[in-house]
């Protein structure tokens, strides 16, 4: 029993935010595969208590923000982001972290990363117009002159690795330092991953991107576990300081 107790203390609890849109099961399975304990939830308490939060989503930006507001999840997500624990947006979840989207009018986003979400602007490949949405596999790379991937969730990802995308819109971060990865769709270069401190997001679906995608979930589990360890060490230090001063 004590062994179980120890395990549950060190297991990473992952909250997958459920606001009524999208298929969350594949995210949940990938979390489980990477050794985390996932829970699909729409509870603010679960989100705030989690060691790592995944914000997935499919569909339209405006509908998704409305759904987050209806579920009273905007403030809990912003509060969670302040905690320093990892927040990971996926696909539409990346776009929701941005300040605004121009999908069917202008909508405010969560504003955790500055910059708009815009539609692919007539991408072409040679004389052929490419389809929007982009559905399929595409390569991701670190931005030229931008931060490299060491120490990030893409630490173990190879430059030019293929990931699975489904999207018509993409983010345009205002600060180049928040662009974690770029990709090309025909003649258009776009931002395929963002990062600002503990906030990460991917325009692609790591949970549908084969072994390379699963590596990202493993890195996320490792990052969250590291933070748990750090905070428990800090608590022990504080306790021993208190003990010392009491002595």
């Amino acid at each position, binding site marked *: 029993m004590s062994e179980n107790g120890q395990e549950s203390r060190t297991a990473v609890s992952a909250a997958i935010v459920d606001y009524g*849109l*999208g*298929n969350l099961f594949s995210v949940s*399975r990938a979390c489980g*595969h990477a050794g985390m304990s996932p829970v699909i939830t729409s509870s603010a308490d679960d989100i705030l208590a989690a060691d790592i939060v995944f914000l997935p989503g*499919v569909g339209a930006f405006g509908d998704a923000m409305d759904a987050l507001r209806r579920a009273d999840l905007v403030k809990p997500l912003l509060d969670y982001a302040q905690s320093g624990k990892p927040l990971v947006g996926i696909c539409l979840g990346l776009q929701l972290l941005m300040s605004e989207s121009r999908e069917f009018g202008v909508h405010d986003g969560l504003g955790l990363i500055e910059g708009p979400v815009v539609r692919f602007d007539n991408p072409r490949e040679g004389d052929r117009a490419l389809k929007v949405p982009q*559905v*399929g596999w595409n390569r991701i790379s670190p931005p030229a002159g931008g931060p490299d991937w060491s120490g990030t969730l893409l630490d173990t990802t190879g430059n030019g690795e293929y990931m699975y995308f489904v999207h018509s819109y993409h983010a345009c971060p205002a600060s180049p330092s928040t662009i974690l990865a770029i990709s090309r769709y025909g003649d258009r270069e776009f931002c395929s991953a963002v990062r600002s401190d503990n906030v990460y997001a991917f325009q692609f679906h790591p949970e549908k991107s084969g072994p390379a995608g699963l590596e990202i979930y493993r890195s996320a589990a490792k990052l969250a576990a590291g933070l748990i360890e750090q905070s428990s060490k800090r608590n022990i230090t504080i306790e021993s300081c208190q003990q010392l001063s009491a002595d």
Partner: protein
Amino acid sequence: MNVRIIPRMDIKGPNLVKGINLEGLRVLGKPEYFATVYYEKGADELLYMDAVASLYGRNSLLHIVEKTAADIFIPLTVGGGLRTIDDIRAALRAGADKVAINTAAVHNPNLIREASLKFGSSTIVVSIDAVQRSADSYEVCTDYGRECTGLDAVEWACRACELGAGEILLTAVRREGTGTGYDLTLTRRIAEALPIPVIACGGAGRTEDVIRVIREGKADAVCAASIFHYHEASAVACGKADFSDEGNVTFLKTGKVPSGIKPVDLRDLKRTLEAGDIACRMCA
């Protein structure tokens, strides 16, 4: 743009099967085995079709999906006999990333709208089985080509797209399983008419057919079954597993590949595409 290569797996009961014109289904083996091999060889997605559900209104596929989804992290599309929002939800819950709807969408086009609003367009693939009626017209049929609908395939594809379909899975029923090549005219017509991706299906007999449907048919993604299945099935020692009383086991007993089919390893096919300047995802 990277073209997607998607092995199509028709399932009957516990088995992977393959027929000609979606009839005369032969047992090829266990779907879990094939799914794992294709995942490891770099399949871009997998498509599971319940070969009988649409006829008998039952759905036996979902537990197979559940078993495979636990270890396979590429998009899985599930189709065959999905009729309602609840059916779709059950398929997604079992591990599907997308669902393919066909007969039910023809009978009730509003299902496309309802499902795409509920689960997102990218989750909803509308599957169209088409039969050529004249030099330039194709008719939509349902129930594996048995029922004619009177609908024009190009018009129906456009309608499905307007209603919210995320992709079209386009099967030339008369080519299906024959190895005579994809219907390039049909594929090109619909691929060029639609702003959403079109997955070409039906007729692949050799690598060259896949190349042609990408170059000439303008397919955004390509489904193939026989060319991959017969390659992998011959790699398995036939006759070892007990498939007695499980339908037509001709192939398992004789190991005879149907004429017109030139089996190919999925990895080799992708290498050939790349060498021919057709971009696709290559696996390490």
